[in-house]
Structure formats: structure tokens, C-alpha cells
């Protein structure tokens, strides 16, 4: 399986500022979060970056995501002549 993957993303573990988290929450409509919630969100932010950063990426662009929808011909489809 290793041959099919490569690790491409490197993230730096940084501390997120309270101001950044407040702006993020405001931008995405999370306006009812209390200051305690926002502080907890600030603590969780590095984990969000780390989880994505440490995930090996498939090597080939043609490696599709699991739930990719593929249309199948309908039973009613007329065969091309």
C-alpha cells in the first residue's frame, strides 16, 4: 500500500490567536459561541491542522474519493445505433 501513497503535506504546529479564532467563528456564522467555547476552539485548532497534514496523499490524481458518484445507464436508455 505504501507504493500507492506519499506524504505531501507538512504543517507547522503554531499557536492560533484568539483574534483569529474569533474572526473565523464570525465569518462562518458561529456567533453564539461563548468566550469559553472560542477558547476551546482555539485549543482544538492545531489538531485540525495536524490531522489533515499527517494524512498521506494518494500518489495519482486519478485516485478518486470513496463516495464518488458514477452515473450508470438507465434501464430505459436506448442503445446507440
Amino acid at each position, binding site marked *: 500500500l505504501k507504493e500507492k501513497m506519499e506524504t505531501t*503535506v507538512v504543517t507547522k504546529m503554531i499557536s492560533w490567536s484568539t483574534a483569529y479564532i474569533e474572526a473565523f467563528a464570525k465569518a462562518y456564522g458561529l456567533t453564539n459561541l461563548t468566550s469559553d467555547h472560542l477558547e476551546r*476552539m482555539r485549543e482544538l485548532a492545531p489538531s485540525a491542522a495536524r490531522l489533515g497534514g499527517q494524512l498521506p496523499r494518494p500518489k495519482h490524481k486519478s485516485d478518486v474519493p470513496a463516495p464518488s458518484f458514477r452515473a450508470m445507464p438507465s434501464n430505459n436508455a436506448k442503445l446507440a445505433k
Partner: protein
Amino acid sequence: MYLERIDEVDDRIHSFINVDHAGARKAAQLATDEIAAGHWRGPLHGLPFAVKDNYDTAGLPTTANSKIRIDNVPDSDAELVRRLKTAGAVLIGKLATWEYGTGNGGEYYDLPFPTARNPWDTERFPGGSSTGAGVSVAAGTALFALGSDTTGSVRIPAAATGTIGIIPTPGRLSLDGILPNCYSLDNPGPFTRTVEDSALVLEQIADRLSGDPRGELGFRRAVGQPVTGMRVAVVTDTGPGMSDPDTELANGLDEAVRKLETLGVEVTEIKLPVTSALCFNVTSILGPAESAAIHEMELRERPDELGYALRDKLMLGSMLRAVDYIAAQRQRLTIANAINDLISGYDALVTFGTLHLPPRLGVEPEMTAFTKDTMLTPFNLSAHPAMVQCNGFTSAGLPLNWQIVANRGDEASIYRLAAAYEQATPWHKSRPQL
């Protein structure tokens, strides 16, 4: 009988969130009358069951152990509940769960209903998130139960309570009317005391999959069939990045495999093509991201009413990048194909379920390790049917467990192996003393 048992012991184990005494008595009387009149609906007619409180039940509160849904009373039953009622089974109530089926393994004190307790040792945790389902079946407060599994939430409680917990091939059981947790991984599953009961319940509620042979699904028929000549892969190496199993669990798996050999099974030791640690990484992105999408409005509008574990998950999911989510879904397919290629060379695969024994309540590191350190997640990602079965007890009387996995659509091979093992061992006869 089961209602009396609930009254007798449930204040010590908290398996139920809500018991429907009146509804259960009425349904039981109806079943009695129908059977007496010669209108027998089948083998589940009159048998009492309960469901995790994330299944919709008509006229009965469905809280998912959340303050936000405390007054939620659905108009209709989840499809699996409807099928069981149609078969004449008697719904006796709703079972304990983590809020929305979410938790990292800890004990949460900010939810409406208390944490269920393990009937084998009430100072220990019974596993989540289908906490009440395992407890009720082990303790005899329900004959069988339905739970739901995203990354182990059926099989972890089954492991902790010495019950049979199975997730079938995804798509075989309807998710209609079950509160979603993660669209791409959610999978319901039944809990029972015996393998035959599991086959009976699953066969009653399952759908056919394209590719199934014609005729009956064959789960019940598989129980009791000989296993001589079956080819089974064994995985004892938990791989890099994952804990070693507790000694009792390692010995339990070894002895169970030896038992299969005495029954004529051809056993081959192999390694998984992926690490459980990688699988955990993938689900750590899929789970929070999808939950944040599913429950976006709760986080936006009523964050203070969420328990901290669910709120943490939704906040984390809100910060994950779409790029990383898609990378995780691409990784999932690569993992699923690799595991499928491996299993397709065998009739089944056996390995550990959990890597630790049921943890002590209140000991947070033990509790989270019990939930996190498992060999369960690879088979959620790979979409294979998988069962956890009790394969012994520690000297202190705690249940051990192993996991049996089969090819997609071939739940019958799991039942064949599990039933042969059950018949050759005494473990299913043990009952917790409450």
C-alpha cells in the same frame, strides 16, 4: 418478565433512557392474543427488544441523550424498528448512548442521562456509543437490541459486555430514521446473546444486496454448518502506531484460533495491508467533518446546550479543510481496496476487537484507550461485515473478545464460524451476577 428485570436492576446499570411500560404491555398482549388465535408472525413474534436512543420511535421520545432533543417525539418509527414490529417483536424502550452517538471514550457528566455501567463489573465502562444496547442484552433487560456503529460503536460495547455485536455489509440495513453521525460510515447492527439469535434478527431486518444469491439470505442456515476446510486469515500483529493487546486478550485470540484449527479450519497468519493507526487518522477527519456538516445548525444556534464532547467534535469538524476531507475519502478507497484484495483470498479473517479490557469508570486514560485502541476501524473503512464475539473471561470475570470479518455480502461465513466456535466453547452460557 423483562419489565420486571428492568425494575429490579436498571437503577444499577442505567441501560435504559426510557422504558415504555404501557406500550410494551399492550404490544405483548396483542402478540399473545394473535399467537393464541393461530396468527403466528414468525420467530420474533412476542419477543422483547430495545433500541439505542438515536432510532426514531413513533410516539416515544428519541433524545439521543441530548438536551437539544429532550422533547423530540417522532411521528414514525425508524425502518428497522418498523420491520421488527411488523414481525411481532415488542419494543420495550430506548437505550443509553453518548450524545448523538458521539464521544471519545470518556464519561460525560453534562448529558441528560447517566452513563450506563458494565453488568460484569458495575465500576467499569460498557463501551460506547451503543452503551445501553450491550448492557441490556448482557444483563437481561432486553432479549435483543439494535445499536449503530461508525467506527466501532456496536462492536466496542459488544466486546465490553460479552455479547454478540455485528455490523453487516453497509447497505444491508436501512439507516432511515436513525440520527446520522457520519454519512459515509454509519452502519446499524444488532446485539444478542447467541450467534443464532443474531442470525435470526439480522435476517429479519436485512435487505438483499445486488449480487446476493436468490432465495433466503442464509444467515440462519449457516448456523450449525460444518467449518471444515474453511480458509481463515488471522491477524495478531496490531501494526505500527497501535498499542499491543492486553495479555489476556492476546491469549484469548490465540486459544480461539487453536480452537478453530481443531474444528478443521485452515488458518493462515497474515498482516493487514494498512495500519489501524492510519485508519484512525482517516476516520478522525471523516467523523468530525461529517458530523459538523450534519449538525451545523446546533453548533450555530444552540452551542451551550450541547455536551462538551459533541461540541468539541463539531468545532473541530468546522475547522477541517475540505482539501483534507477529500484526501481522507481518497485514502479510504485505497484502504478499502487493499483490505478487500486481502480478504477475498479467504473465507474470513479473525483478529482482535478491542485491544484492552473494559476500563474503570472515572479513569479517563483507560476509558479513552479502550475506545481508541482497537482493530475495528479498518473494517468500517473497507465496508466489510464484522462481528465481535466473546471468547473467554479473565480471572476477574471480565469478558474477552475477538472479531470475525468476512467478504462483503457474506455474513453467512461469519455466522458459520461464530456458531461453530460458540458450540465448541462454554462462554455464551455465562451471565453477569447483578
